[in-house]
């Protein structure tokens, strides 16, 4: 709903409600995937590769099949059709056929009467491998074109290479007073959702199969499972069970989901799998390790004259979302600050490690870390206050960036003011005693990707509403509840439009048999897109009910109000009827009362190859200050206090928005100081929750959050995203605070104590990457900027094709 049309007497929106599913959750009644039990259910275990990179010569399942209690054994040749989340990276198989590409790649599966028998059977499967050279890093991938991990991709073991130039970056540097270059490294880390992935395949003798799974993207799983199982989509049902945390880790279609469906088809019995925690570490799809180089030109007043950004991503063994991730490391730099000339070069390598994919912030925390530290360095070089400098270079409302991203509402300056004042920044920055410091960072994030993952011109989100004669309202939507409150958002929005209590409604989500398509819980898209679709559906219901009620009451429909479960004449509120009576009147007049609504994002502005990644209906903005204590003896960094001001457009429920902000600060703290997904001899160094250190109550800082609302015309009631953006400034704010505390730069995360000490001992007073491996970037696609008269198309001579 456009902000200017926003009703000023909102009854539900903007209030602190509990979530509609909160009581079931605290009662322990929410059914997660592993809580499902079906009669005669079998249990599945996967045999995973112990090899990093090897040809499969032979898989012998004879002994496993003979083990009492084993009902079926499955090998890769039975599911030969490849799949993958992106149409351009269909490079995975449900079970490996010819080759394994990382330790943990699944090769065979067993369905047995219990987990122990299934586990024992996997040990009886004999696989003969012929090891191939394993490629374990970006550097190795670049200098080892053969053997190729995949037989597709841009070259050798380079999966994807991107080169884009908006304007003329050299011209920008020529206009600069200072040109600053540096290198940054962001180590990979993983989602670590508390719930391990689980799925149940259920076969229906009518030739249909259902997969109940902890997936964030039932629609994409529906497509992948139909394809691989060779069944019409009408014969495949995906039920996304409430996710026990997702953070992007359950956004890909997974091999185990397809395997249990196939095993259910083979045995005629329900088949369940629940991954062990160790297996979850190997499924991964988490944060890409990224090596980055930044060259930035700045004027004395802090304004950026040009930015050249290079990123090299360690993609792991499969494509996953990687092409999008690569573009995302370059897409959003321009959405926060004014950048007149911008060049981005990125590449993603294949390596023999678990595949990387999207984690909260998808591809943008890494460049944000680099950029915000770089700005801190620039501010120091120029003698400017880093907060003031950022305020000066903030993008404007309703502007178009160099790479044709359309900014709507932007309250970044207000966020900066709020956090500067609230944190006491001016009294602390460069003024605290040695060992204590404060750091500043800002960020912005998209509220849903402007384009879908596979090319189509259908809506991104659909909502259906059914009204019962008793006044009951059921809202159906394909969105997936992963803890963020997406079910609640549907309830709040529909209740607001129809004048009901949100707890009156029933919400049915994430079921491809029952609910209209929503693309899934990723890219911070759900509130904006399902919210808009729900408003449209609810307005259509309201229109039907109003038409009938108006006739009955003898007043014009336009004069009817909907509030407190009543439909009434606004000029005489005593004249009216209950909501249930109104629905009955409407059903008598019009037949069964129901309506659908849908949402499609606005047309994007860029028309060059790669323009599909970055556009969004709206961008959130945020500014943050971290305070740290650094022990100069041990190098241990603690963060006792964090302040963040956050422009989420309009908080549909401030309680939930603040929950997302605090959770983001928490997760960012882990990424900044401790979490890393690293490998030794191809094996995960610590695939357990204890050793993969994540923050506990003892590390979590106090967090002060301010919601600075700048309603966006594209958001439902002006709402923008809340789930991912607030993570982005955390890592650079902490890194900048470490510098303020002990005057050394740690230009990589996690900021381990030994890195701080190494920086303190070094002559450069810095710890971080020293070089970038040689790589050819290819000819850049040159796109004139809007202020050069550009239209969003590449300059003549370039391929003019929009690609995701």
């Amino acid at each position, binding site marked *: 709903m456009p902000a200017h049309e926003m009703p000023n007497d909102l009854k539900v929106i903007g209030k602190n409600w*509990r979530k509609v599913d909160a009581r079931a959750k605290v009662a322990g009644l929410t059914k997660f995937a592993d809580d499902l039990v079906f009669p005669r259910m079998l249990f599945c275990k996967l045999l995973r590769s112990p090899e990093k990179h090897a040809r499969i010569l032979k898989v012998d399942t004879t002994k496993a099949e003979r083990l009492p209690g084993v009902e079926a054994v499955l090998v890769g040749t039975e599911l030969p059709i490849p799949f993958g989340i992106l149409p351009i990276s269909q490079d995975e198989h449900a079970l490996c056929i010819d080759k394994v590409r990382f330790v943990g790649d699944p090769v065979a599966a067993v369905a047995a009467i219990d987990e122990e028998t299934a586990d024992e059977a996997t040990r009886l499967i004999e696989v003969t491998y012929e090891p191939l050279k394993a490629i374990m890093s970006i550097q190795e991938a670049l200098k080892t074109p053969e053997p190729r991990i995949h037989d597709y991709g841009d070259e050798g073991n380079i999966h994807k290479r991107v080169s884009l130039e908006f304007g003329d970056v050299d011209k920008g540097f020529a206009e600069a007073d200072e040109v600053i270059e540096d290198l940054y490294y962001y180590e990979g880390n993983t989602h670590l959702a508390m719930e391990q992935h689980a799925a149940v395949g259920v076969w229906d003798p009518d030739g249909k199969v259902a997969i109940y799974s902890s997936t964030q993207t039932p629609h994409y799983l529906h497509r992948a499972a139909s394809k691989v199982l060779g069944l019409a989509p009408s014969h495949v049902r995906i039920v996304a069970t409430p996710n026990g945390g997702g953070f992007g880790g359950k956004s890909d279609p997974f091999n185990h989901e397809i395997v249990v469906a196939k095993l259910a088809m083979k045995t005629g019995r329900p088949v369940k799998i629940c991954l062990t925690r160790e297996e979850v570490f190997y499924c991964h799809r988490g944060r890409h390790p990224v090596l980055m180089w930044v060259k930035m030109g700045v004027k004395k007043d802090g304004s950026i004259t040009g930015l050249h950004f290079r990123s090299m991503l360690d993609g792991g063994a499969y494509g996953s979302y990687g092409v999008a991730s690569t573009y995302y490391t370059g897409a959003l730099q321009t959405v926060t600050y004014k950048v007149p000339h911008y060049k981005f070069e990125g590449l993603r390598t294949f390596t023999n490690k678990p595949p990387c994919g999207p984690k909260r912030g998808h591809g943008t925390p890494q460049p944000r870390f680099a950029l915000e530290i770089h700005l801190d360095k620039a501010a120091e070089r120029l003698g400017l206050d880093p907060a003031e400098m950022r305020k000066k270079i903030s993008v404007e409302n309703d502007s178009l960036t160099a790479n044709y991203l359309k900014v709507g509402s932007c309250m970044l300056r207000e966020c900066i003011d709020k956090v500067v004042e609230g944190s006491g920044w001016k009294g602390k920055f460069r003024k605290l005693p040695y060992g204590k410091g404060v750091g500043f960072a800002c960020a912005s994030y998209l509220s849903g990707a402007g384009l879908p993952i596979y090319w189509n011109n259908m809506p991104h989100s659909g909502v259906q509403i059914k009204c019962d004669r008793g006044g009951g309202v059921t809202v159906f939507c394909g969105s997936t509840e992963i803890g963020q409150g997406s079910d609640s958002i549907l309830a709040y929005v529909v209740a607001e439009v129809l004048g009901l209590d949100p707890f009156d409604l029933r919400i049915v989500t994430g079921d491809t048999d029952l609910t209209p398509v929503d693309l899934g819980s990723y890219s911070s898209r759900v509130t904006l897109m399902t919210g808009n679709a729900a408003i449209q559906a609810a307005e259509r219901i309201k229109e039907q009910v109003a038409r009938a009620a108006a006739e009955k009451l003898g007043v014009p429909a336009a004069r009817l109000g909907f509030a407190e479960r009543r439909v009434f004449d606004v000029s005489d509120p005593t004249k009216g009827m209950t909501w249930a009576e109104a629905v009955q009147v409407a059903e008598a007049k019009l037949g069964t009362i129901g309506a659908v609504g849908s949402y499609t994002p606005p047309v994007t502005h860029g028309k060059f190859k790669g323009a599909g990644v970055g556009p969004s209906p709206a961008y959130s903005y945020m500014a943050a200050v971290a305070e740290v204590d650094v022990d100069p003896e041990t190098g241990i960094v603690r963060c006792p206090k964090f302040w963040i001001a956050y422009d989420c457009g309009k908080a549909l429920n401030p309680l939930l928005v603040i929950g997302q902000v605090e959770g983001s600060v928490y997760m960012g703290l882990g990424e900044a100081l401790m979490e890393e997904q690293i490998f030794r001899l191809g094996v995960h160094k610590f695939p357990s929750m204890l050793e993969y250190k994540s923050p506990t109550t003892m590390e979590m800082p106090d967090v002060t959050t301010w919601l600075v609302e700048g309603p966006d015309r594209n958001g439902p009631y002006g709402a923008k995203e809340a789930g991912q953006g607030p993570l982005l400034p955390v890592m650079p704010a902490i890194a900048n605070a470490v510098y303020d505390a002990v005057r050394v730069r740690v230009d990589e995360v996690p900021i381990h104590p030994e890195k701080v000490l190494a920086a303190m001992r070094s002559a450069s007073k810095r710890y971080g990457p020293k070089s970038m491996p040689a790589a050819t970037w290819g000819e850049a696609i040159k796109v004139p900027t809007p202020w050069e008269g550009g239209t969003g198309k590449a300059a003549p001579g370039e391929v003019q094709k929009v690609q995701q």
Partner: protein
Amino acid sequence: MKNVAPGEKVHLRLHVNGDEVDCVVPVHKTLLEVVREDLGLMGTKHGCELGECGTCTVLVDGQPILSCLALAIEVEGQEITTVEGLADGPELHPLQQAFADTGAAQCGYCTPGFLLCAKALLAKKGRPTRQEIKEALAGNLCRCTGYLKIYEAVEQAVEKVADLRIKNAKWPANPCCGD
């Protein structure tokens, strides 16, 4: 403890949430497995099955334990409380109410473990300080909330839990003669 061979099935009589329940399970089954698979109490979750995350916490005689590290046979005869045993009939426990109202449960997966640890804390401390809450909950991981709403929920529940304790207190039959 009974003397049985590995893998052998044993008959157990467990006291769970005030009920006495019988089950026949392999002797090596953990309390977590028995509670979920044999008793159907799916409210108890698992996050690692290695005693690292606190998700599977249940109370045994009022003390929080990691049910993934305890064998069911070890706790026979002791009073086991799972999240299903917190509510008083249809009435949620004040801690459950507070967790729901403050947004302390996002995905809700770690919530049962936190609730039981918090219940044990309030039984011991009555009115814990923020620092005591942090320390009591330090063995439970939550990836959604950043813990802050969980502290608020525990603090919000303090008074109501104290009232509940007074209401449910079992006075001696003859208080005058109490020793």
